[in-house]
């Protein structure tokens, strides 16, 4: 029987489990493995139902299912993509930009130890990051994107932007990998650049490319159910413990540090946002509080395993004020319709967090990659420069790649729904169903 090379590779992956990645002497620590499996579940919880509820409550009542479906679609499509090729492109040996095909079809990814956890555990933990990152972008084009266009755009985006980003920062030999010979060694503990800057900047390009929603800004564009958004934001907060503390890849003191920093930054940012609202708008709002908390969670993400709890409070507070400024003042000034503020929160908060990581990184929390001083406050100005360069590189890469993918998708399957479909709402026009059948 003759099989194609691809089929043989697939069968090989299905039938065998060869510990190619495992270092000599790696052994699974059951505590570590258990913790990272729990963290994987927590990170999935951030997308569904967390982000789906957070975004779903912010749109109009005729678009909530369409918005939630964008998150759900990522849970399906990115998982498939990750299993076939994504994990390999992100985390197998390759060049400085992208990995190779060693792990295609999860070939060689089995139960064996990879560090102190199973290789499968590491793979599935990283998968959950790959799911939420494109899902974050959907906030920018809420209420006006075709379902098919969204799917094609985000799958291409994962391949062209996310997998290379993950490889460059966390993959073996990646360009920005501070722990594996990167030529621009960036400190990014849990995905400030990989997840938030990349998705946030891409979100801005999407909002600019697609244009405003019909009727924006008008009466009909008020959030339709902030109760749902509140539940979603609180689930994001809880899930973020898995995201950041799990990025220690062990159930150790560093995980505890990241856990505490995550919580502290969210609390400080929430208060900062409420204070800004009270001063400028006269009233502290629920929506402001939850948005502030998410901004703090975004900003602490790259820093969570490098800074002290007091620095986390400062980073959170700065993020609360700066993201308030970007969402409330900058957006109005520039006039784009980033519907759910994916750029204002993730792009700006991620950029801020990545730069502040270079300032506050402390070698007492985690040893600097080359030993010695970690961040600017310890006297290592080079780290601030490296992290800033990493952010700039991510901005340019994500913006250019997103623009190209948008143009290609627009020219083939199309991006924006027709005016009639937009007026009817995504729930009916894209999915043939309604969220609220109160006469039923």
């Amino acid at each position, binding site marked *: 029987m003759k099989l194609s090379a691809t089929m043989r590779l697939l069968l090989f992956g299905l039938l065998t489990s060869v510990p190619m990645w495992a270092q000599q002497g790696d052994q699974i620590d059951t505590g570590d493995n258990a913790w990272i499996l729990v963290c994987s579940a927590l990170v999935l919880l951030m997308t569904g139902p967390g982000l789906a509820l957070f975004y779903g409550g912010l749109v109009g009542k005729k678009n909530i299912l369409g918005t939630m479906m964008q998150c759900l679609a990522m849970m399906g499509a990115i998982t498939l993509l990750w299993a076939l090729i994504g994990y390999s492109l992100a985390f197998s040996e390759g060049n400085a930009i992208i990995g190779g095909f060693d792990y295609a079809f999860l070939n060689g990814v089995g139960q064996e130890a990879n560090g102190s956890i199973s290789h499968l555990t590491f793979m599935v933990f990283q998968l959950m990051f790959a799911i939420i990152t494109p899902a974050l972008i959907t906030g920018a084009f809420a209420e006006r994107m075709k379902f098919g266009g969204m799917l094609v755009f985000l799958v291409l985006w994962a391949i062209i932007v996310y997998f290379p980003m993950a490889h460059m920062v966390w993959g073996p030999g990646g360009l920005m990998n501070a722990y594996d010979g990167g030529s621009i060694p960036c400190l990014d503990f849990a995905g400030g650049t990989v997840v938030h800057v990349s998705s946030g900047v891409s979100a801005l390009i999407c909002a600019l490319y697609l244009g405003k929603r019909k009727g924006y800004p008008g009466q009909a564009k008020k959030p339709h159910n902030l109760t749902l958004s509140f539940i979603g934001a609180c689930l994001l907060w809880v899930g973020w413990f898995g995201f950041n503390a799990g990025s220690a890849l062990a159930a150790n003191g560093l995980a505890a540090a990241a856990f505490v920093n995550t919580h502290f930054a969210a609390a400080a940012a929430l208060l900062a946002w409420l204070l800004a609202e009270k001063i400028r708008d006269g009233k502290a709002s629920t929506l402001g509080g939850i*948005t502030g908390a998410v901004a703090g969670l975004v900003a602490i993400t790259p820093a969570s395993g490098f800074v002290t709890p007091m620095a986390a409070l400062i980073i959170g507070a700065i993020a609360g004020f700066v993201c308030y400024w970007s969402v409330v003042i900058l957006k109005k000034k520039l006039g784009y319709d980033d519907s759910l503020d994916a750029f204002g929160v993730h792009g700006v908060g991620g950029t801020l967090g990545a730069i502040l990581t270079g300032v506050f990184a402390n070698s007492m929390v985690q040893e600097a990659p080359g030993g010695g001083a970690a961040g600017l406050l310890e006297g290592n100005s080079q780290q601030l420069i490296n992290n800033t360069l990493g952010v700039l590189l991510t901005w340019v890469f994500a913006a250019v790649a997103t623009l190209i993918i948008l143009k290609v998708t627009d020219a083939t399957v199309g991006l924006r729904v027709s005016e009639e479909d937009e007026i009817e709402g995504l729930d009916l026009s894209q999915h043939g169903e309604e969220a609220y059948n109160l006469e039923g």
Partner: protein
Amino acid sequence: MKRIEAIIQPFKLDDVREALKAAGVNGMTIYDVRGHGRQKGHKEVYRGQEYEVDLLPKVKIEVVIDDARVQETAEAIIGAARTGKIGDGKVFVYPVEEAIRIRNNDTGDAAL
């Protein structure tokens, strides 16, 4: 016969229904409506984006009554719905040509 249409504050609905019951009025139709008279609306702010909301939620009550009881019915509604502030609402009275009970074809006052 007359139709009394009263637009009131939603939170006054229970008081008005009690008053109508005390005045011997058994039937009514209630609508949830939005509107405004001289009352100003309010401002809502979502992430710094301001929305002026001037159509406020109100409740509309419709009662059809025989001519002799129009005065006391209107007074019952007004007495129960009044807070003395702008936004309390209004009462309108219209003539009704005919009333027919669907169940048994009763007409006029007997159908009320």
